């Protein structure tokens, strides 16, 4: 920057100010407020009458089977979705990374679910997962039956509901990660690939020793972003199963939402949100440390 042009020490802050102001007003202040409320018995309809109750909300949540189930479900969902979605996105990107125009079509096809509204997709997939009744069934069961396997009550079976929602979520989100990988692939140095080819490396060796190492930062970004996105699980189970059957798909966000608006227990909901924040921050940190280790 050209100091002679009139820039002072305050100048960078001037440029940062709008972002800092907005982040402060809409992220930091509410977060601090939520942290304070989490130690009170704040009632949504009577926030002014909130009283300090110490860590009672936290100790209550940790013994609440529904909260524990929501915590477990959310973590399990992330565990199912993150590796599957990242790996699938990577291979889709490798597959469609070709210059001919018709491949561009395929890229668009994979990306379409990302831009379609999630409630619409949730309704659509509820139909696709339709159980068998009489001679009618959803498309998923029709495919399963075509393979000679028995039809399933995908969304009504406590063991299948979360995996079914995870599958649908991977399908919905994979196009986004594919695009990021695609951008990374297109920045790959052609020289390196050609050199590897001349040295006699086959496709597998080129992938392992040239492409993956060069894509490390894309991979790290995709893993972190997918992890955080997967923790935001709410719309799909809320609309497809309402957290059922037998709480098998209730997510942390749904728990916090219901505690706030149905239970009116704002303080307790804030405590749940704080624990959620700890989970996300902790896992993200862990993943960053892990990624750094891999890089070094």
């Amino acid at each position, binding site marked *: 920057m050209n100091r002679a*042009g*009139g*820039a*002072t020490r305050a*100048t960078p802050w*001037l440029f940062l*100010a709008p972002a800092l102001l907005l982040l402060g007003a809409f992220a930091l202040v509410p977060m601090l407020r939520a942290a304070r409320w989490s130690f009170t*018995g704040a*009632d*949504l*309809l*009577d*926030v*002014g009458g909130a*009283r300090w*109750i110490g860590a009672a909300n936290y100790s*209550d949540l940790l013994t*609440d*089977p*529904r909260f524990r189930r929501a915590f477990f479900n959310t973590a399990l969902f992330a565990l199912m979705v993150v590796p599957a979605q990242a790996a699938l996105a990577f291979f889709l990107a490798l597959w469609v990374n070709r210059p001919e125009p018709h491949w561009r079509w395929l890229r668009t096809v994979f990306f379409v679910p990302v831009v379609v509204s999630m409630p619409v997709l949730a309704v659509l997939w*509820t*139909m696709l997962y*339709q*159980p068998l*009744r*009489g001679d009618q069934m959803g498309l998923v069961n029709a495919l399963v039956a075509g393979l000679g396997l028995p039809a399933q*009550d995908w*969304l*009504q079976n406590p063991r299948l509901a979360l995996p079914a929602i995870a599958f649908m979520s991977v399908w919905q989100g994979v196009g986004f990660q594919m695009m990021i990988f695609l951008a990374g692939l297109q920045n790959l140095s052609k020289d390196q690939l050609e050199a590897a080819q001349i040295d006699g490396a086959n496709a597998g060796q080129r992938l392992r020793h040239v492409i993956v190492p060069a894509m490390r930062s894309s991979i790290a970004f995709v893993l972190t972003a997918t992890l955080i996105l997967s923790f935001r699980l709410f719309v799909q189970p809320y*609309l497809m199963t*309402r*957290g*059922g*059957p*037998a*709480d098998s798909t209730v997510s942390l966000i749904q728990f916090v939402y*219901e505690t706030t*608006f*149905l*239970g*009116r*227990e*704002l303080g*307790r909901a804030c405590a749940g949100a704080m624990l959620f924040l700890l989970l996300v921050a902790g896992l993200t940190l862990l993943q960053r440390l892990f990624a750094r280790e891999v890089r070094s």
Partner: protein
Amino acid sequence: MVGNGQRLRLRSDFPSVRRAWQWTLAALLATGAAGCAPERPAAPHVVRVWCQQGQEAENRAMREMAAAFNAAHAAQNLAAQITFFPDFQYTEKVSIAAAARDLPDVLALDGPTVAQFVDAGLLRPIADWFSEEELADFAPTIRAQGTLGGELYALGAFDSAMVLYYDREMLARAGVEPPAADRGWTWDEFLAACARLKAAGFDPVSLHMDESGDEWYTYAFSPVIWSAGGRLISADGRQVEGVLNAPENAATLRRWREVFARDFAARAPIDPNPFGHGQTAMDWSGHWMVRAHLAAKGARLGAMPLPRMGPETVAACGSWCWGLTQGARDPDGAALWLRWVTDPVHGIQPIVAANGAVPARASAYPLFPEYADPPFRLFRELQETAGRPRPRTPVYPTLTQHFAAALRDVARGADPQESLDRAAAQVQRRIDRQRGAP
């Protein structure tokens, strides 16, 4: 807007950027201050009214009602100002407004949510603005719905009713005899009718298990529990554990589940109106479908009370109603609105003509000649003889959330006792937390 030349100058000249920033800040502060200034006293007697946005016909009726109210009260310089909020998650939106202390003078509330607003001290008693005779004119179900701790806090213009609709022709073809006039089936008779219909090749009944909202399940199937003599919550509102999950309720749900176990009804339907489309022979539904069903079926449409598990028929009821807020600036003016919208001619006639609900006052029935005959007559009879409001407790939203989840689980085959135990434990924890709070 900033002109081109000005923008160029700004980019090259930081001090003036700073000055521009100061100006912006000043402008922001000024607008903020203007926002905080007391509202102009242009219309000293505005009654601020909030209500849910329903079907377009309902909204139009509400707007016309407000225009008529304003015309009638122009001499008193009193005017109602309606704000519509989308029906979806209306109660959540009102709760947020309450948290921000930004409630209007009068607001529409769904019947079972009145208790939590009373509990939070946000509504004021309204009985003083009505005479004894006027109050006696309201349906007992509507008075009960708005009464908490002996005080009346809400009144509505209409009520709801649930019946079992049936297609006379399909029943006749399956050799099923509908019950004698206005008397519903026992549960066993209902199951036997379903079995005959199924044997005759019909899909017997639609229970609308595709409904995504929790309220449908509590509203539609609590009468099954009640007709067997069960309760969802103790009379004093403190006990759910041991009441909701009483073995008798589990036994009731075990019998209820047979409808799904024997495939008399779809557990995961897609079509919201299979009866109207000729797919099912019977429909477990309410007054809101009667006009559509009459149009589709004509004289083939029959209606009977819901099947009962015990000796007595119990009918679902309850609907949207109006409450006056504690913070109302002009309670007397607000009460005039409340009287207007629950008045047979000014309020009930236009809104019921628009939404087809059951009138809330006896003196309003002469305005609706269709109530002299079935199926409409049945709505009134049920409301007057068998209607029971849903539990009036501040924890109702939690209760309905977990009871609905239990019903959905039982319908898909889960153990009724286990499902009710889980629901009861969650609701009880909520009650105990509130009672234990300082």
